[in-house]
Every structure is written in structure tokens, then in C-alpha cells.
């Protein structure tokens, strides 16, 4: 009987088959398939579930100490070149497989409740299965080229899912922005892959790493070029994992349905960049300059995300910027040469952030009953408040998520974030300081979200405020909301079991999984990188750990207290105390560092103008010359009429003259 690892190719193939089946059904028998909601959902959930079972079997084998498995075949070949594809299962991949299938499965169950009344229910599940398949394929890719293939496919799924509600202008723009910004990153990634293949003749991770070092050592590739290639490849992760300045697509991507925000834009796809950097450690560890760039980019990103999150009033956007910030932490870990710490944060973050997003979805779902299907209203925290009383499960799990992300022991976020900060303290103290302060900001903005949403009094009935918000968003009252008026409720209600169950399940790892990564006995490190495990256990000392950990906890508690004073107890009016006193800073943050405006001016308008002028050149100059010659020959043709009897002779004459001319020419050339 083959081992689970040998069957690992089935893990992405199973959901793919399901997605193909329902996709073909949708195109060929649209009405019938759209009516078969539950059977299709069940089929797709089963396919992902089977993939999950297989993934855990693979993980169990890896825990038992099985060797990595790699299977390759020749995919394309010409001359002496062979491009290989296949799959590879190792400990890192096994962890990711389990993570992706678990979150995907829970999100699918959740979606059954969240999308229950959507007319695109079947299409949504098809996309979900397609995404799961692509993401699982990415995880088991054995080389850079195959990673690139799945990298694009997850990008496509993200495009389709962000633009799921395609009649909304916001969603349509966001989908396009997400795809194009990611393509900018892929531009670098593709060139980097090509360059590395030129330099090392391989696409494999280890071969590239050793090959490039070899090439630099024997002088066939200069150090500068090698660093350039590494940085080009890094552009891919920058876009996918929303690192500054390519993070601009992620907050906009919140226009997609909330289960998508949880699965793709918090837990899995956006982490693919971090995962790729971890895979490329054999390459990056030889070039300290590259690591420095990665660390700095990560630090800028983590600070930027947190600073913008401070002022967000949209619940999902607030969470989105917090994701940007946390991805920055992971990238910082990679830059510090601590991939294990980064990957560990990836895992813990995936669980608690997915839970937070699903919680926000539960809130939005409940809010929609009160304010209608208008994202501007349903997601704005100014209209929420007091939801703890009506939504106990959602509020409890959300609170657990907030505590976890703020880094309060023993919840998951504390261990992973503290490990990163500890590594940064050793490598780049300045970057540590930024990360440390940001940890306090994180605790503040997360609890600000929590208090505004779940504490105080419910403000959703305030029609005057609703009108103000709609006006600020440039929409008129009753555009989308109007036809939902008849079934409005007065107070939001807790969501059904399909939505509550995944929240409760995710709360378990959010609390406990951090204990697998305690610095003195990190079982996560033992699995992924045994050398690192031994190193960590040897280096660990309470005298170093306690002050740093204590400081982190202290700054987090400070952030939480500030949030509590301002938003729970209302002892402090931050709008008066800070925002009014520093209007510039407030405007800077509220406008998201003006990056969207700059992008729009520079790239969107710029490229439009350039394209317009090229088209003008094409139609006026290039085609103008053609039309002019056409006119002239027409004129000369008219003239020739008097000497010749028709076009055919003229044509023959030219041919004849041409041949004579050539013969004479060749005669003289010899």
C-alpha cells in the first residue's frame, strides 16, 4: 500500500475535480445546477474534507519521522531543456496542507450559512473549491516554476472571488486592482525565476540556493546581480503578502464576501508570500543584504498596517490592515533569518485571524438584517455597539481573537510574535523597537474594534447617522438598501450553527496552538527544522526571555487599557485629545498614507494617458502615412491609366522590372 505522502497529489486534485464538475454543470445546465444547492455544497465540502483527511495522514507520517517525498515528470522539453513538474511533501508542506484544508473546510461550512440567501451560492462554492485546489497545489510544488503556476492560479481565484458580487462597482474595481497589483509583483517574480534559471540552470529550491552561491564564488555571476535576482524574486511575495508598497490591493479586496476575506485574504493566500520566502531560505541565507531588505520592508509594512488600522471605521478594513501589519511581522522574521518563527506566526495568525474575520462576517450578517445589504452601513462600527448581549458566541470568540493577536500569554499570538521580536532584538535592534511599539498599537486597535462593536449601546437604528454615512460614501439612501426594507429587524441576532460552529472550532487552536511553540521546547521547530530546534533549546535562557516577554506583555496591556479608557469607559475622547490636535497626522492616516492617491495619479492616470497618446500616434501618424501613400498611389495609378490599359499589366510590369533589377544587382554583387 502506498504511503500517504505518495498519494499527496490527490490532495489538490480532489477539490479540483469537484470544482470542474460543478463548474461544467453551471455552464451547461445552469438552472438545474443552481437549484441543487445543498448536494453541490456537500460534494465540494466532501472533496475538501477528503483532502483534509489525507493531509493529516501526511502530517502524521512526517511527525513519525518519514523522509520527504518528491515525484517529478517531464512537463515540457525542447532541445536539452526539460521543465519538470511534480509534487514534494516535507514537514513544512505537511503543516501548510493541514492548515489550508482545515481553514478551507471550516470556511466552507460557514459559507453555507453566510451565503444561504445568495443567488450565486453554487458558483461561490465552486470558486472556493477551485481556490483550495490551487492553494494546495502551491504548497506541494517542488520548484519555483510550479510555484509560479499555482501562484497565478490563486491570484485568479482571488480575482474571481473579490469580484464575486460583480454588480457592485466597488467589488469590480477591487478585483481588477488585486489582479493587476499582483501582476506587478509577478513581473519581478517571473524575471527573477528566469534569471535564477540562467544563473543556476535549475528551478529547484536547494539547487538554486547552492548553484547561485557557487556561481558567485567562481565569479560567473557578480554579487550585485545575484542580489538583484533575489530581490526580483522577492517582488512576488511582496505583492502576494501585501508588503509595502504593493499592499494597496488587500484592503480593497475586502469588497469580496467575508468568508473569502477569512480564507484567502487572511489565512492562506496572503501567507503564500511568506511561505515562498521560507522555501527560498537556501537562497536568501547567503545574502545578508537581501535579508536586510526583507526585514526593512517587513518592518515598514507592520508599522504602516497598524498605523492605518488605528483610524479605520469599517470593521473589515480594520481587520484587513491588521492582516497587513501581521504579515509584516512574518516578513520581519524571514529577514532576521528566522523562518521557523515566521512560519509559526503564519500558522497561529491563520487560525485567529480567520476566526476574527468569520466573526466580523457574523456581525455583518446580523447587521444586514437591521440596516440592509449596504456594505457602507453594515460594516461601519459607528452603527454597531452592544452586540455582545445579542451575539454571545461571536463576541466571545472575537474577544479570544483580540487577546490572541495582542500577544497576551498563553494565547497563540503571544508565543509566535514574541519569538519574532526576540529574533529581531538579536539581529536588528532598531527594527525590534518599531515592532515592539507596533505591538502596543496592535493591542489598542484590536480592542478598539472589539469595544466599538460589542460594548456600549446599539446604534444601528440611528437613521440620521446612516444617511450621513451614505452621503459620505457618495451613495444615495435606498439605492441598495431600499428593496430590503421590508424585512428589517430592530436588533441583530446571533447567526445559525453553520456560522457559529466554525468560530467555536477555531477558538481552540487560537488559544492552545501557541503552546506547541514555546521557546524552550518548540515542537513546531522540532518538526519543521530539527537543527533550529536544538539551537533554540540550547540558546534559551529565562533571563533573556522574561524581560523581553514582560515588556511585550506590558506594552500590549497598555494598549488595551488605552482602548478601554477611550471606547469602553469613555473617560477619554481621543478624537478631541489626539485627532484634533494633530490634524495632519490624522488626515495622513485616514487617507492611508496617501498611497492610493499617488498610485492613481502616477500609474492609473499615467498609463491611461500613455496608452491614449500611443493610440493617437498609431491612428494619426502610422496609419496616416499609409493612407497618404494610398492616396498618392491612387493618384499615380490614375496617371498611369493614360499610358497603360489596366492594373494587371502594371502589376506584371513591376514584377518583371523587379526581377530584372535583382538579376542586375546580383550580377554586380557577384
Amino acid at each position: 500500500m502506498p504511503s500517504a505522502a505518495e498519494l499527496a497529489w490527490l490532495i489538490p486534485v480532489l477539490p479540483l475535480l469537484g470544482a470542474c464538475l460543478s463548474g461544467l454543470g453551471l455552464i451547461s445546465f445552469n438552472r438545474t445546477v443552481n437549484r441543487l444547492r445543498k448536494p453541490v455544497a456537500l460534494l465540494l465540502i466532501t472533496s475538501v474534507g477528503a483532502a483534509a483527511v489525507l493531509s493529516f495522514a501526511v502530517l502524521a507520517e512526517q511527525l513519525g519521522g518519514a523522509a520527504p517525498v518528491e515525484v517529478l515528470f517531464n512537463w515540457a522539453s525542447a532541445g536539452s531543456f526539460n521543465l519538470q513538474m511534480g509534487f514534494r511533501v516535507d514537514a513544512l508542506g505537511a503543516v501548510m496542507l493541514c492548515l489550508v484544508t482545515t481553514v478551507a473546510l471550516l470556511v466552507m461550512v460557514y459559507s453555507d450559512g453566510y451565503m444561504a440567501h445568495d443567488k450565486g451560492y453554487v458558483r461561490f462554492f465552486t470558486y472556493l473549491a477551485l481556490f483550495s485546489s490551487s492553494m494546495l497545489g502551491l504548497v506541494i510544488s517542488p520548484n519555483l516554476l510550479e510555484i509560479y503556476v499555482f501562484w497565478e492560479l490563486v491570484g485568479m481565484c482571488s480575482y474571481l472571488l473579490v469580484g464575486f458580487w460583480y454588480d457592485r462597482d466597488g467589488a469590480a474595481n477591487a478585483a481588477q486592482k488585486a489582479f493587476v497589483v499582483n501582476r506587478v509583483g509577478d513581473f519581478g517574480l517571473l524575471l527573477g525565476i528566469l534569471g535564477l534559471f540562467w544563473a543556476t540552470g535549475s528551478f529547484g529550491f536547494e539547487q538554486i540556493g547552492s548553484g547561485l552561491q557557487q556561481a558567485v564564488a567562481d565569479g560567473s555571476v557578480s554579487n550585485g546581480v545575484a542580489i538583484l535576482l533575489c530581490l526580483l524574486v522577492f517582488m512576488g511575495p511582496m505583492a502576494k503578502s501585501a508588503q509595502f508598497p504593493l499592499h494597496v490591493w488587500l484592503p480593497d479586496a475586502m469588497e469580496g464576501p467575508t468568508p473569502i476575506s477569512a480564507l484567502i485574504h487572511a489565512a492562506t493566500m496572503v501567507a503564500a508570500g511568506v511561505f515562498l520566502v521560507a522555501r527560498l531560505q537556501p537562497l536568501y541565507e547567503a545574502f545578508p543584504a537581501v535579508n536586510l531588505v526583507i526585514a526593512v520592508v517587513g518592518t515598514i509594512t507592520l508599522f504602516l498596517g497598524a498605523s492605518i488600522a488605528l483610524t479605520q471605521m469599517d470593521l473589515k478594513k480594520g481587520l484587513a490592515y491588521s492582516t497587513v501589519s501581521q504579515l509584516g511581522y512574518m516578513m520581519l522574521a524571514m529577514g532576521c533569518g528566522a523562518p521557523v518563527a515566521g512560519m509559526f506566526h503564519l500558522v497561529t495568525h491563520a487560525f485567529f485571524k480567520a476566526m476574527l474575520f468569520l466573526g466580523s462576517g457574523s456581525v455583518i450578517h446580523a447587521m444586514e438584517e437591521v440596516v440592509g445589504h449596504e456594505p457602507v452601513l453594515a460594516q461601519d462600527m459607528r452603527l454597531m455597539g452592544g452586540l455582545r448581549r445579542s451575539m454571545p458566541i461571536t463576541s466571545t470568540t472575537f474577544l479570544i481573537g483580540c487577546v490572541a493577536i495582542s500577544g497576551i500569554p498563553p494565547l497563540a499570538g503571544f508565543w509566535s510574535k514574541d519569538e519574532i521580536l526576540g529574533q529581531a532584538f538579536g539581529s536588528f535592534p532598531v527594527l525590534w523597537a518599531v515592532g515592539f511599539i507596533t505591538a502596543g498599537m496592535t493591542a489598542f486597535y484590536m480592542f478598539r474594534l472589539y469595544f466599538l462593536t460589542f460594548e456600549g449601546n446599539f446604534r444601528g437604528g440611528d437613521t440620521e447617522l446612516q444617511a450621513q454615512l451614505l452621503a459620505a460614501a457618495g451613495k444615495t439612501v435606498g439605492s441598495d438598501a431600499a428593496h430590503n426594507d421590508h424585512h428589517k429587524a430592530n436588533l441583530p441576532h446571533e447567526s445559525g450553527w453553520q456560522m457559529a460552529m466554525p468560530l467555536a472550532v477555531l477558538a481552540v487552536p487560537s488559544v492552545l496552538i501557541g503552546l506547541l511553540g514555546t521557546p524552550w521546547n518548540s515542537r513546531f521547530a522540532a518538526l519543521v527544522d530539527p537543527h533550529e530546534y536544538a539551537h533554540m533549546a540550547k540558546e534559551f535562557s529565562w533571563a533573556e526571555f522574561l524581560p523581553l516577554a514582560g515588556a511585550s506583555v506590558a506594552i500590549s496591556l497598555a494598549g488595551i487599557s488605552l482602548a478601554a479608557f477611550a471606547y469602553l469607559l469613555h473617560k477619554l475622547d481621543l478624537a478631541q485629545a489626539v485627532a484634533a490636535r494633530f490634524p495632519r497626522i490624522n488626515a495622513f492616516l485616514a487617507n492611508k498614507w496617501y498611497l492610493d492617491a499617488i498610485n492613481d495619479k502616477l500609474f492609473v492616470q499615467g498609463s491611461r494617458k500613455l496608452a491614449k497618446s500611443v493610440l493617437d500616434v498609431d491612428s494619426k501618424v502610422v496609419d496616416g502615412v499609409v493612407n497618404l501613400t494610398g492616396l498618392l498611389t491612387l493618384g499615380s495609378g490614375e496617371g498611369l491609366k493614360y499610358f497603360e490599359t489596366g492594373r494587371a499589366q502594371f502589376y506584371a510590369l513591376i514584377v518583371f522590372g523587379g526581377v530584372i533589377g535583382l538579376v542586375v544587382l546580383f550580377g554586380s554583387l557577384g
Partner: protein
Amino acid sequence: MAFPWLSAAILFPIGAALLIPFVPDKGDGKQVRWFALGVALTTFLITVGGYLNGYDPAQEGLQLVERVQWLPELGLAWSVGADGLSMPLILLTSFITSLACLAAWPVSFKPKLFYFLLLAMDGGQIAVFAVQDMLLFFLAWELELLPVYLLLAIWGGKKRQYAATKFIIYTAGSSLFILIVGLAMAFYGGNTSFEYSVLMAKEFGTKFQLLCYAGLLIAFGVKLPIVPLHTWLPDAHGEATAPVHMLLAGILLKMGGYALLRFNVQLLPAAHAQFAPLLVVLGVVNIIYAALTSFAQRNLKRKIAYSSISHMGFVLIGIGSFSALGTSGAMLQMISHGLIGASLFFLVGATYDRTHTLQLDEMGGIGQKMRKMFALWTICSLASLALPGMSGFVSELMIFVGFSTSEAYTLSFRIVMAVLAAIGVILTPVYLLSMLREIFYGRENTELTSHTHLVDAEPREIYVISCLLVPIIGIGLYPRLVTDTYRASIEALVVRESLALKELPLPPAGGELIRQQLLKAPLLPA
């Protein structure tokens, strides 16, 4: 004697087309279309039969050879055959033409003439790829122009006369070069013959080769098209009906690429060694220039037409790459674009039938009324922007890898060209996705929906697109399905051009530098 598969594939559709006047038809095309579809499918089966029975993909040389003396005093023989360069394109031609017949289903204006021309074109285009004689090639090349001219001039849009005239002047004018160069090559040296095999064995002088190359480059550059010889294409595409469109984009453009490989590379390798950097530069110009014009274009048909030009730029880079992988990628890009281009143009036609406008400003939000159409458009656009899993990605990747690892160019040249070509990777989704955005996304355009009846895709349309998507996705998943059919021929061709490259006369500064000097003054050495 073996069955003459290729002659049958050429002559059967033309012969059957001559019978069309006798097909009983009430004049609305309802009978004749079945006849035409049957003929086109039979032709497709003949080509498939030839491929299965007489073609061995492992061999590099000419197969399925048929040779009959025709006009011995002129040295003219009916000589057809197929190698790796022509066989895939012959199959593509008969395949796309069958689908074009299906796409022409609603044609009701002079249907007999329409299908007559469609079938005549089928035979003519197969002949272009199959003949092994330069005079025959010229005849077939010219023969296929006439149907296109008439199809444009009779069934085209508002500016059809202008577009058709422009098309015929451009292509007929440029094809003069083919005749002149053909005559010159045939009479060169002692042995007068137009056959490729004889021409290949001749030792042409370098200057002669360069002159011939330049002439042929103009002739085929119009067809491919190469910027700035492209301006016939947006007009012709802008006015053509959907089936003609499919043939123009699916097959006609490939004649240019095929001819470049067949004549410029195979017959004139020494000149190719000198000209290749120019091809690469022109390819990059094609990619970026046409992507930008496509982005700014507001007319849907012309937008897709420009995107075709952009995609053909990759073919040029592949041909100029001097690597088996890159050249193989160029061949695959032609096949892949034949399929993807045909599918997109078919969709443009199907959409126009419903909206009666091609202006993007007059559309918007129609995705809600036409969900299946929306899905088909999305899939085909993703294929066109080279999404992995579909054929366009594989061919572009092969060209990228082949070119960037090519030994023929200096590193700096390769870097600059690869970076510029990769900008196309960003620009293509920009124009394709914003196109989708403007047609389907957002709020419904009430002005459009109030006076048109938007029905969703019908089974015939879904069937046509599915037929195109099966090979597109098949190649994307496992490209060797197709690349193995022509691999041997391409490798032989690359060996031939690489030998010529080694004998390239070196300027004093050394072999590596010449590629850059060529860049600055690429045409004639002093």
C-alpha cells in the same frame, strides 16, 4: 501508392465548394450551412487521418510527400508534404475552419457565396502550409487573399470597402516581394527549381541572403503583423464578421509566422543570424506598443485585434531566440493564439449579435443578464492573459526561458529585452480585465438593456467555445501533447541556424559584441 492525404485536404474543400451552386437552398442558408459544415468536418478528418496514418512526429524531415510534374518547362511541380513546421498548422486550419462554419450559422445574406469563399479559403490555407514549392506557395498565398477580400467587402461593417481595399493593397503589395525573392532564389546558381529542398541545398551568398531576407521580412511582416506594418489589421478585424474574424486571427496571422520559419530561418540561415536581434527588438515593440493601443482603444473588436498584434510579438522573440525551447515556444504561441484568438473573436461576434454595439462606452453591467456569456468571456480572457493551466502561459514561458538562456546574445541585451517583454505581462491583464470590467461588471446600463434583448449564450455558442477550450487547457496542462509533434523539426531547424550563427563574420571587437553592434546598425554590414 499511399492515399494522398494532403492533396485531398487541399482539393476536397475547393472541389466541394464548386458544387455549392447546385445545393438546394431557399436562399436563407439553412441547407447550405449543413453542407459546408459537412465538408469542413470531412476536411478536418482528412487532415487528422493524414496525421495519424502518414506522419511520424519523431522524424524531422518531410513526410506525406506527394510529387507530380505539373509544368516541367517552368520547373513547376505539384509538390506537397508536411514536417513539424506545417503539420500542426494544417490541423489548426481545418479545425478552426470547421468551427468557423459553425460560427457562421446565423449568416443569411448571400449564404451560398459566403460558404463558397469559406471553403475555398480552407483549401487555400492548407495549401499554404503544405506546399513544398515556392511558386506554388506564392499562388496559394495569393489565392487565399481573394476570398478574404470578398468576405470583408461584402459582409463587413460600415467601413468595409475601405478595410477591404486596405487589406488587399497591403497584402498583395507585400506579396510581390515573395514572388521576386522566389524568382531570384530559383534562378540563383545553375539549378533552376522552386522546390524548398533544392533551395535549401543551394549555397547562397551572404549579401544575396540579406537582400532576400529583407524582402521576405516585409512580406511576412505585413501578415504577422509587425509594427509598423500592422495598420491593415485593426481595420480588417474591425469590419469583419465573426467567422471571418476567427479565420483572420486563427490562421491568417500564422501564415506570417510559419513563412518566417520556413523561408527566413530555414532557407536563409546566414541572413537570419544577422537579422535575429532585429526580430527580437521588433517583437518587444509589438508587445508593448500593441498592448498600449489596445488599452486605449474603445472599440471592442479593434481592442482584441490589437491584442492579437501584441501576442504575435512573442512569436518574433521566439523565432529570434536561437534556442530550441524558444523556437518551439514560438510555434506553440502560434497554435495557442490561433485557438485563443479565435475564441475571443467568436465571443466578440456573439456579443455584438446581442448588443448591436461594439463601443465599450455603450455597454456595461450586462453580466447579470448573460451569465454564461460572462463566464465564457472570463475564461477566454484569462487564457489570453497567459494564465497557467492554459496554452498561452506555456508558450510565453517557453519563449521567455528560451530567450533568456540563449547563447546568441550578450547578457545586457537579454536582460533589457526580457524586462521589456515582461512589461507585457503587466499590460495584458490591464487591458483585458478593464475590458471585462466595462462590459460585464458594475450596474446594468439601462440605456442598453431598454432597447436590446440580451439572451444568454445558446448551446451552439457554448459548444464552439468548448471545442476551443479543450485544446487550450489540454496544452496548458501537458504541453508535450503538441510540442512533441514538431519537436524534431524545430530542433533540426535550430541546429541549422546555430551553425550559421557560428560562421557569422566577426568584427574585430569579438563575437559577443557583434550582437550589440548589430543592434545599433542591424541591417547591412559595410
